[in-house]
């Protein structure tokens, strides 16, 4: 049911896009206005979400560490997993952002039939890590590759990335490795959610919707490249027009382009209000981005109220004479 809901939502969006693609009068809306709106919603919404998160106080150090803390000199500290320097934190964050360090430690828990009844067993589970890694890196490379439509002249790095991506030179136009990887990875991530019962139980429409969106974007892009071709030169003129704020709408681009760009626009507009915000959120993980110096440095809760204190020294100053008369010993004469 949850799957069906998301699926139908994406189908509806594809129908809207198809309508926009085949009605020429709507091309200005679908090719120029909606992409601009989506871009503004993406960047604006992203900044809004991050600032909102940033305003919540972070009172304590709450690192989750998997390495030896800095201790006695003859005990070797794990400087990356339990960092006491800013550099260590940067390396730990880079491992997290680039290689999904936490997910790599993912384990699965099973109740197995043992000799003396059921036994609890733990095992390593790397498939999710591998699928995510392939998906995210493919997506990143695909986005960078698309810069060839937005930049003129095209930077050398983008061209190199593109030729590496198409290095197998299968067919013409050459098949991109990332196109294959992203489809396989998204399919895996989807199947995992409907096949594994525990994961299925906790999956919501908000989990399926982005997966279907990504799938339809990838498929529309592949269809556009290999089957229902569009006029690339016209596409690039439109893209550069958008980037220079002098939008032009060349004729004869081809309907598949409008379907693709509409779906991408919807995904980007939806991005800040969805779980996809983990793109920004990962940098704000309090368990990962703080130096693990809980006890080395005194950390003061930022919202502690001013407490009025009356120390013993002040107390003695106040009552010294009376104390002396009553024969109570005082520290200072």
């Amino acid at each position, binding site marked *: 049911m949850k799957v069906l809901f998301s699926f139908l939502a994406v189908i509806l969006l594809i129908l809207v896009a198809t309508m926009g693609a085949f009605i020429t009068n709507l091309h200005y809306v679908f090719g120029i206005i909606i992409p601009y709106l989506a*871009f503004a919603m*993406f*960047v604006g919404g*992203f*900044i809004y979400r*991050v*600032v909102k998160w*940033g*305003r*919540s*106080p*972070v009172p304590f150090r709450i690192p989750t560490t998997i390495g030896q803390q800095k201790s006695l000199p003859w005990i070797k500290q794990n400087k990356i997993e339990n960092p006491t320097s800013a550099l260590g934190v940067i390396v730990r964050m880079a491992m997290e952002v680039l290689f999904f360090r936490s997910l790599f430690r993912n384990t699965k828990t099973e109740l197995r039939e043992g000799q003396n009844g059921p036994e609890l067993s733990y095992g390593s589970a790397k498939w999710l890590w591998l699928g995510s890694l392939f998906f995210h890196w493919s997506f990143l490379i695909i986005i960078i590759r698309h*810069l*060839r*439509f*937005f*930049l*003129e*002249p*095209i930077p*050398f790095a*983008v*061209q*190199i990335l*593109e*030729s590496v991506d198409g290095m197998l*030179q299968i067919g*013409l*136009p050459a098949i991109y490795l990332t196109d294959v990887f992203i489809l396989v990875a998204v399919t895996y991530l989807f199947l995992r959610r409907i096949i594994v019962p525990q994961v299925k139980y906790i999956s919501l429409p908000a989990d399926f919707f982005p997966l279907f969106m990504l799938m339809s974007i990838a498929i529309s892009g592949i269809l556009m490249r290999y089957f229902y*071709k569009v*006029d*690339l*030169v*016209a596409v*690039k*003129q439109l*893209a*550069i*027009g*958008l*980037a*220079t*704020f*002098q939008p*032009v709408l060349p004729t004869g681009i081809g309907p598949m382009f409008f379907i693709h760009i509409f779906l991408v626009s919807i995904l980007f507009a939806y991005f800040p209000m969805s779980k996809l915000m983990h793109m*920004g959120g990962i*940098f*704000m993980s309090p368990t990962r981005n703080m130096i693990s110096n809980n006890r080395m440095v005194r950390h003061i809760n*930022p919202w502690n109220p001013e407490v009025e204190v009356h120390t013993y020294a002040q107390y003695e100053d106040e009552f010294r004479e009376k104390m002396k008369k009553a024969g109570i010993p005082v520290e200072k004469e």
Partner: protein
Amino acid sequence: MYKGGKIFASLIIFAALFTIPFFYNMGKVNAGPDVALNTAAIQQLPASEQQCVESPEFMRANHMQLLNQWREEAVRNGQTVYVNSQGKEFEISLQDTCLKCHATESASKPAVLNNPVSTTAGVSNPALNESPEFCASCHDYSAVKPQCWSCHFEPKEAAK
């Protein structure tokens, strides 16, 4: 805001990354490639031969597949005649058929491959197309490097 400085700095980097196209293209003219479909070389041909192998729309979308098919026919099957959708026959040859019209700006030597990497001074970008201007204008614009010129190259001795 707690750690506001770092968060704002990161957000500025985020916004900068996603607005690269706006800054990169700032003040540039949005000019696509100028593909000459009516060059001097084409005009010299008799009217019956001015039409390309297939229609311009078909060529724009499928020229790469057609060239691939031609390579297959000529190099692997020994077939050197292509019959187009109108039943007209063409010789399967990149240099003698395609480049007869679509070679370079210079009409004097239409069949000679022009290598812009060697002609344009100071350019040594290995990702650049070593194609005749006709191909390169679009291919450079959209960063597509054709594989044609790994076989169809001008021998170094001939260039001297």
